[in-house]
């Protein structure tokens, strides 16, 4: 195990202290595990709060700032945060126009955010929630917990964040967030398992020379294991898996996302293959983002997320954003 840590127990707290040191425009409460933009609550603005297990950085804390989230609640590694965190965050960012919770579809996140929403409403905060479930690798049926929330979370937080920044009311921001969810799909591939600090050994056993197709972002195994494939073959498989479900009629945003241990050199090469497949399938690309945004600790591999966008969604995607993990415009 080669990890740049002190002890497993303090990994999250240590990272939060480091974030505080690096980003003076954030208020980082390491004890209560809430990251808030320094100018919150922003007058007359709907606030966005998200959160989830740690280990997916820069998601979510790296997306706190003007144009995106107002607050993020990091849980333990791969463990959803507790309701107390979201209640505290909601109280810190609510300007009186309400709070939107952005929740990735995992049983733990759903239950804890649900409890938090009830508690925050008891305290007089108006709360709406949107569930992100974009991962086509999971069959969405009554026999599973439903599709997981993965890369599309970035699309939702960016676009809904821009809508809130423009002063839209809670119902509009919520409706836009839902539209982004409905317009987005993702598929992930692991070339290696990841190692949680607490366990110290890989979360699943993936022999060299094999890859896991349809992997999640918590080191949970995927649906199918195959002999190692080329970047070209993986792009064909992943993009087709997404397109089979999305069938876009509009141009798409493309997120080629690294899982944490795959170099940008390889991710850009993979993006070239993703573009080739999209060209072959006659899907026009509106914007592309390549990098490590929704990671899974030290897992090697990547995911592809597509979001079909009309003029309004594209305008909100292009709107200025100033966060640690995503920054453009102005």
């Amino acid at each position, binding site marked *: 195990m080669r990890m740049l840590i002190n002890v497993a127990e303090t990994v999250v707290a240590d990272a939060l202290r480091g974030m505080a040191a690096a980003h003076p425009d954030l208020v980082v409460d390491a004890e209560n595990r809430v990251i808030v933009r320094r100018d919150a609550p922003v007058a007359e603005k709907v606030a966005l709060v998200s959160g989830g297990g740690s280990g997916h950085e820069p998601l979510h804390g790296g997306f706190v700032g003007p144009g995106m989230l107002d607050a993020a609640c990091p849980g333990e590694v*791969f463990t*959803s945060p*507790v309701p107390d965190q979201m209640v505290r965050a909601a109280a810190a960012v609510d300007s009186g126009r309400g709070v939107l919770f952005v929740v990735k579809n995992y049983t*733990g996140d759903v239950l804890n955010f649900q409890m938090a929403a009830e508690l925050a409403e008891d305290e007089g905060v108006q709360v709406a929630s949107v569930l992100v479930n974009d991962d086509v690798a999971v069959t969405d049926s009554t026999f*599973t917990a439903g599709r997981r929330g993965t890369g599309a979370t970035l699309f939702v937080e960016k676009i809904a964040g821009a809508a809130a920044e423009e002063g839209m009311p809670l119902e509009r921001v919520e409706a836009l967030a839902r539209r982004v969810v409905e317009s987005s799909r993702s598929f992930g591939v692991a070339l290696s398992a990841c190692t*949680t600090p607490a366990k110290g050994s890989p979360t699943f056993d993936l022999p060299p020379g094999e890859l896991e197709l349809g992997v999640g972002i918590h080191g*949970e195994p995927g649906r199918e294991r195959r002999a190692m494939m080329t970047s070209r073959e993986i792009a064909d498989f992943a993009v087709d898996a997404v397109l089979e479900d999305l069938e876009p009629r509009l141009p798409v945003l493309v997120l080629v996302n690294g899982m944490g241990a795959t170099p940008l050199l390889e991710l850009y090469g993979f993006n070239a293959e993703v573009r080739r497949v999209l060209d072959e399938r006659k899907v026009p690309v509106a914007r592309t983002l390549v990098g490590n945004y929704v990671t899974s600790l030290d897992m090697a591999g990547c995911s592809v997320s597509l979001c079909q966008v009309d003029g309004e969604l594209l305008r909100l995607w292009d709107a200025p954003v100033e966060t640690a993990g995503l920054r453009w415009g102005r």
Partner: protein
Amino acid sequence: MSDTVLDAAFFVRWMTAAAASVEREAGRLTELDSAIGDADHGNNMQRGFVAVVKVLEADRPEAPGGVLVAAGRQLISSVGGASGPLYGSLLRRSGKALGEAAQVTREELRAGLQAGVDAVAQLGGAAPGDKTMLDALVPAVAALGTSFEEAATAAEEGALATVPMLARKGRASYLGERSIGHQDPGATSSALLFAALAEVAK
């Protein structure tokens, strides 16, 4: 045994024994969770029950119901994941059902725990056979009508019975057929709770 009355001190001993048991078995719970989940169940339960013991030491409620409500609240505030709300609701709702009585009988405890198990089923949307903690809890609460030992045995057997099941809830459900052949970590920790109950009732 059926006439035994259980007071708040008994419930504190139960929670303390459960904490010790979770501490002992944390490695095994995490190991089971790494096969079909995300390898954190042991650590999360350990963190939660350490917090429960601490809060009960600091402020000991006077009624059995109060002990379970305080323990449940603490689990919700400290565990996270799905286990936090599910175990937290189990204890909190059981405690609420026991009310403010200073002493309860085994039968009253059984009825209280039944309310807690119903809350878990409602919150998680699961049913017995879905390879979840309910597969240990439901038979255990039923057997508590007979004795503490029978309840512990039923919980343990219920946990073992999850091995051939196909997971339909929680993270293990993503695995589909590949979830078969592994014991459910949540059912396993539920069995620890009933083993601890039988231990302190001896």
